[in-house]
């Protein structure tokens, strides 16, 4: 509970806040303005929020004192007030109005001095929208604020995607949009933003700040995982990993969470220590199964972490590793056979493979195994041919088990 506050003191505090905002605008101090606009990070009780509670006529005060900012300041104060009262939906609505007013002002400022503040607004509106949506969802209402924040950010993007120094700030807003779209499950909306970032002439990707580039690459890499474009995904996620600040372990983990399955699918296995270091042990069994050719282990691992994999969207990628596991299994059989009978090493009888799978407690009949062998050859995981009449897999004498070497299956 906020301590008692005299009207005068409340008035003073509010006036102080207002003058700081106005001063930072008049002196073009972007950093100061940005800190003043951070609504959602404030604790429930701040000197300002207490003052707002004690002085309910604050909107008029703000409007009277700074008529040229009468669109921005009253709504901003209302947003701060509602936020301190844990009324996030109201806070969001007010903040959105303030943000629109701010965007209007921002458009008129020729220099990008307020870019930091604009970015703060973009971040704040997303965070507030998420809070508001949680609140709305628990009260059984339609959580549509994040979507609204998305359309506001599109406006911001439009204001930034212009010629001139402001364009540098566009990628940050793009990343905020990605975050919203991924949360809402409307990733198809990313496409238009990506297109304008990647094709518009006024953007040179290298000009953008590194942090934004990393975030951008992370999200676009994830999109490529959904599309099963593993090569592009690998490229983008690797870029993100290489440029990510190594101090931010959580971000590295996020990137690796998608990069590991992508690398697995193109035949690159991580060290277990890497998985341990970034707490990605859910992949450990998958990696082991690939090394051993243990189909059963792969299936178990997938089953065990199914929910997690499905949620992050890598399930289908990991599922496709099966063929590589088969390849490994046949390779092991081949190696054993070469030790036993060097003369017939390149001829693997189907029944041997069937028996091996039986040991792994995989229930497959001869036809299915034959089909799998055919698939392995078809997908270039095995060089050779299958003789149907004699039910023998005939391996090529040269490099019968070609490595993927960065190529997807």
């Amino acid at each position, binding site marked *: 509970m906020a301590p008692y506050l005299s009207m005068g003191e409340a008035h003073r505090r509010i006036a102080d806040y207002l003058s700081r905002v106005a001063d930072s605008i008049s002196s073009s101090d972007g950093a100061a303005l940005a800190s003043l606009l951070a609504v959602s990070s404030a604790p429930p009780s701040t000197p300002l929020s207490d003052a707002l509670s004690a002085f309910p006529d604050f909107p008029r005060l703000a409007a009277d004192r700074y008529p040229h900012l009468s669109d921005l300041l009253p709504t901003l104060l209302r947003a701060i007030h509602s936020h301190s009262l844990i009324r996030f939906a109201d806070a969001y609505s007010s903040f959105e109005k303030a943000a629109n007013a701010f965007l209007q002002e921002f458009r008129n400022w020729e220099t990008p001095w307020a870019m930091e503040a604009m970015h703060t607004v973009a971040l704040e509106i997303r965070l507030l929208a998420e809070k508001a949506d949680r609140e709305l969802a628990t009260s059984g209402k339609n959580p549509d604020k994040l979507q609204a924040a998305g359309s506001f950010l599109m406006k911001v993007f439009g204001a930034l995607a212009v010629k001139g120094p402001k364009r540098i700030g566009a990628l940050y807003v793009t990343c905020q949009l990605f975050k919203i779209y991924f949360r809402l499950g409307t990733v198809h909306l990313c496409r238009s933003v990506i297109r304008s970032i990647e094709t518009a002439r006024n953007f040179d990707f290298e000009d953008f700040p590194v942090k934004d580039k990393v975030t951008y690459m992370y999200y676009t890499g994830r999109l490529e995982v959904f599309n099963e474009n593993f090569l592009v995904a690998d490229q983008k996620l690797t870029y993100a990993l290489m440029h990510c600040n190594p101090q931010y372990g959580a971000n590295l983990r996020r990137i690796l969470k998608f990069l590991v399955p992508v690398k697995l699918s193109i035949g690159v296995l991580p060290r277990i220590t890497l998985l341990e270091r970034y707490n990605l042990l859910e992949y450990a069994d998958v990696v082991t199964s690939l090394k051993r050719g243990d189909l059963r282990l792969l299936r178990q691992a997938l089953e065990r972490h199914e929910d997690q994999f499905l949620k992050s969207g890598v399930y289908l990628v990991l599922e*496709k590793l*099966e063929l590589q596991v088969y390849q490994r299994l046949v390779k092991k059989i081949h190696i054993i056979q070469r030790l036993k009978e060097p003369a017939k090493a390149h001829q693997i009888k189907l029944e041997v493979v069937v028996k091996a799978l039986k040991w792994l407690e995989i229930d497959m009949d001869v036809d299915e195994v034959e089909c799998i062998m055919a698939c392995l050859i078809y997908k270039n995981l095995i060089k050779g041919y*299958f003789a149907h009449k004699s039910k023998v897999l005939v391996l090529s004498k040269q490099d019968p088990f070609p490595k993927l070497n960065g190529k997807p299956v």
Partner: protein
Amino acid sequence: MMASHGAGAAAGSDAAPAEVNVVGHTNPSLYLPITSAHHSWPSSTGAATVSWNYPQDNPSQDAIYYDPQRDVSVPGSNENVASSAPHNVQPSMDTENATHFHVPHSSSLQHGYSPAEYANYYYNYPQTTNDSSVQQGGANQHSDCARIWNEQLLLSEQHMECSTTSGHTITITLCQILLVIQLGTVTQLQTPLLVTPVPVSSHPHQELHRGKVIQVLLLHLLFRLQVLESLKINIITRQSRHTSMPQNNVNLNPVQQSNNGDQQKTVFVTPETSNENKVQVPRIAPGFSMVIPKSEKKILGADLAKKPTYVSVSMLKNGTDARSLPFSLRNYATRNFNHCKDEAQRAACQSMIEEIKNKAIADGTLLTKNWDTEPLLPLLGSVATIKETSIANNSSLSVPSSTFTHRRRLKTRWEPVVEDKVMDKVEPIKGFANGNTHSNLEAKNIMSNSWDSRKALQSHQAPAIKVSQRRAKKQKMSSYSGLMQNGNASSDSDKDQDLTKYYASATALANSPEEKKRREHRSKRFEKNLNSSSKSKNSAASKDVIANVHARKAVSALLTRSCEDGTSLAVEDMDWDALTVKGTCQEIEKQYLRLTSAPDPATVRPEHVLEKALSMVETSQKNYLYKCDQLKSIRQDLTVQRIQDKLTVKVYETHARLAMQAGDLPEYNQCQSQLKRLYIEGIKGCYFEFSAYNLLCVMLHSNNKRDLLSSLASLSKEAKQNEAVKHALAVHSAVSSGNYVQFFKLYNHAPNLNSCLMDLYVERMRFEAVKCMSKSYRPTVPVGYVGEILGFLRTNSEASEDCEIWLKAHGAILSVDSSGDLQLDTKASAATLFMPEPENAVAHGDASLAVNDFLART
């Protein structure tokens, strides 16, 4: 048969053959597609003109008379009409004209007066289309047509002017004066009409035989100049709308002929003529399906004089030169035919019409009678339905008017259609009750009352509603508008504005001061009307219905206005429960038509009937297209009544299964998405079965990884234990690893209808498999083996034969080995395999939309 009739008619010059002719004409129209009726008009112009001119004694007159038609272009079937067109038809036309003439004022006034209603009318007819015909033209189409006609009419008018002036200058001037005077008086006469609807016109021009048409035309011209351009437009719009109406009634069988008739009217009716008549006919026609027989032909020659036949100019007095029936009668017959549901009814109807016609000829009313206002003949076994409908309507009477206010968000066209229909149904009852004995005058009187209350305009009239004859209504309408002119003092420019509203969007003008004033005025009237209608509730049942209708209509008009005011309620504030339709239709079978207007309770089936309908579909032996159509109409009825329960789920499940079996994925997807929603709402159904279908559909047909992921993620542990879901998951793993052997094993042992969804993927899977085999197998694979593992066994025990055909069709190269077994030459095939184009592929991607199929459906 029809053709022969027509021919006979053409040969004869008497009234008797002419009757036949009518039948002949109306019938063919039943079989013409509606759309063609719409579009064929311009193209058939030439024929029409020729034919029209041919039989006339006075070519000049007739040519002029019919000239406009040429421009408007009537379908080719006119030939018969033309050749047989008797001169004695013209009197009747004149009568029509007369009515038309005095109407112009009324109609235009009315427009200016209550644009909302006008809009209602405007949208009225699409509804009828929905009710009875397969065509899904919808409002837009019609309105387009209307517009086109408009233009044509305008053109045609100019045409007329030219031709007229060339020949009959003197007559024209004379007539002009006369007519102008007459018209002037007419306007004023309207008012008295209201109270004592005695037909006004004393018919000064009856003596004129020739050049009357010209006069009329000139009159139009003059009138146009003198009065207002807007009027004309107004009227024409109505007419054109009007003209399209008959088609709407038709069940699959467009009424080309009726168009003919209407068209003609439209043509010579010219600007001022737009008759209420015309407006009314279309509206009433559909409703008359339930009409009880009524044959009032008491209009004698004497009545003719009384009729408001201001325009009787073109009328020829004697019946001797009559070679065809009045167009209005032809229309009437057409309407009746359209109404018939089957051959038996049609036959009965035909004989009845002939009887009526003979009678009319016998007592000389053939040409004087206003056929447009004649109620439709009763259909066999439709009486029961009427009663039900009226009861249902009564029950809705009690709905508080407040609930209606929620409708304001709805489009203008929503409300009135229903009322009109109800009204139409009611009228026949009344007419029946009162028999045929009413004099024209009386009828008019009565009608004016009923009309007033119906229109919610004049509550002071005693509700002594006995008979509603449309002609009376017409009179009433005009008189009413006359009254309104006096009382409301709406200026011409106002009318103009109202008109534009219908062409452009209504918003711009909605808030003009005049508008507001008029709105206020109107709303007061509506209140009054509500009162009066509730008063009349206690009288006869039929009256109740009417009152109800009035109330609803009034409210709807009110709503329309408020909608224009922009004060409408937000969607979420609407009381949807109060708006939900309660169906009254008892028919089990119903054709699907996409709604373009508010559902009519009379055509919506209540839940218990829908249950019967569902079981009928389930047991039906007919093809998928039929069943799909039926199920869609069931779904529609469920939706408009907002029924969401086990039956709904069952309907969607049934439809989804049928669609799967027929390979109709789009339809299946519709059902699936509805089912998803219904299951989430907790309605029990075959949830697991459809989860499996959903999985299969997403993995095999949508190829959207995110959808698949979310579908997989949404499966509960319980669901994963279900046999069907397990099967679907196994299919998924087979597909993702390319394990065709497993795929076809699963295909052959699929639970439920899983195999139906797999069916659509089989071709692709087989092709992939053969490609895989030809790359990995050396030197050969027995075709028998391929057939076996690729699931050919399922359809035919001679797997290898089917397989062989399939392989050859896909470019595989086969050879016979030493033991005589057919082998797939893998190395050779690897280069030659191809995926043949699907044979049934169509440009628009949906073979079921092919014209032939579409026609076969009906």
